[in-house]
């Protein structure tokens, strides 16, 4: 292992790419700029639409504007924000809300654990505790795809460009949605509040591993049942039940079969 001083060279084994492959970026600034450009297309548009939808949801349900805006800025996790909003509207207790939101956010543990080890060793220090706030579904999905073709020393810069753009549009999006919902006719507001459930649903069609597909399918069946029984705890109970069943089905039946994406 290199000493704590900056090593003058990069150990070739630290770069997962073959040495014959040219570097994709010239510098950190180049990688950062490319991250911003990659985010500025469909990912940012969809996220912006989701944030507009979230703002509209807050307004139409009479939730405080500051509350709506702050949750976008400080949570930056649409599924969790929608849980927070939905449970606040139906009057759940603060404790139940915090617990449910935290549980939907456990996906960040998995996302971080799969993404952050791909950064260069030099970049893996305490500052990651600040950078991790920029991590959300969008930046994660794009990074996981692009990192394979980016040399490790430029990955953090790329990720920061991507994440920073996504984060910085979330507040304007939310504020816009909040004010639009009060101005535009009700049918348009209806369209705005439908964006998020629609978006979550559509992303499920891109899920490849069978274990996760089974989990989603089971949750679609169990979810409504558990919700009717007890709305407050249904997210947790359905998640644990469907996820655990999917895990064992995958482990016992699917994993050993050839030709199946595991």
């Amino acid at each position: 292992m290199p000493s704590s001083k900056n090593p003058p060279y990069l150990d070739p084994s630290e770069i997962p790419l073959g040495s014959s492959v040219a570097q994709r970026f010239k510098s950190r600034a180049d990688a950062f700029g490319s991250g911003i450009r990659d985010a500025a297309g469909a990912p940012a548009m969809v996220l912006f639409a989701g944030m507009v939808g979230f703002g509209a949801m807050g307004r139409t349900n009479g939730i405080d504007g500051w509350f709506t805006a702050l949750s976008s800025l400080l949570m930056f996790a649409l599924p969790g924000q929608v849980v927070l909003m939905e449970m606040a509207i139906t009057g759940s207790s603060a404790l139940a809300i915090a617990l449910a939101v935290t549980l939907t956010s456990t996906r960040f543990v998995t996302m971080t654990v799969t993404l952050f080890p791909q950064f260069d060793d030099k970049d893996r220090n305490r500052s990651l505790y600040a950078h991790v706030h920029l991590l959300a579904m969008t930046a994660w999905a794009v990074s996981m795809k692009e990192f394979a073709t980016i040399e490790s020393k430029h990955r953090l810069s790329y990720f920061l460009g991507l994440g920073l753009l996504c984060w910085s549009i979330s507040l304007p999006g939310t504020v816009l949605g909040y004010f639009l919902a009060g101005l535009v006719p009700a049918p348009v507001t209806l369209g705005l509040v439908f964006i998020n459930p629609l978006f979550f649903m559509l992303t499920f069609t891109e899920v490849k591993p069978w274990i996760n597909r089974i989990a989603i399918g089971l949750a679609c069946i169990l979810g409504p049942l558990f919700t009717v029984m007890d709305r407050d705890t249904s997210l947790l109970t359905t998640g644990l039940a469907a996820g655990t069943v999917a895990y064992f089905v995958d482990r016992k039946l699917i994993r050993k079969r050839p030709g199946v994406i595991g």
Partner: protein
Amino acid sequence: MINTSLQGWGLWIALAGACLGTYACRAIGVMLSGHINQDSEIFRWLAAVTYAMVATLTVRLILLPVGLLATVPLWIRILICVLCIGVMISSPKRRLVPALLTGTLLLVSYGTFFLTS
């Protein structure tokens, strides 16, 4: 309409708890990254649980919504979702933006013709 929503301090305590909980999950991820094999059994299980929770949330927002969406009949909501999935999977490259637009515009058109409030 009876207003049952959370008011006053409770609302802000819920927000603080939600923010802290969400950040804690991100920080735990940083802490564990590098120490835990991402292909380990616990992460396969955790990923499945996470997908199941987001799926539950989604199905709940579509089938058992609160607020404005509840004024749209259930079968309309389901029909629009089916049409959107159709647009989405009509191309192997996945048409996310066209599918989102389809759903949103269909619901706006429904609202324009049938919403009475």
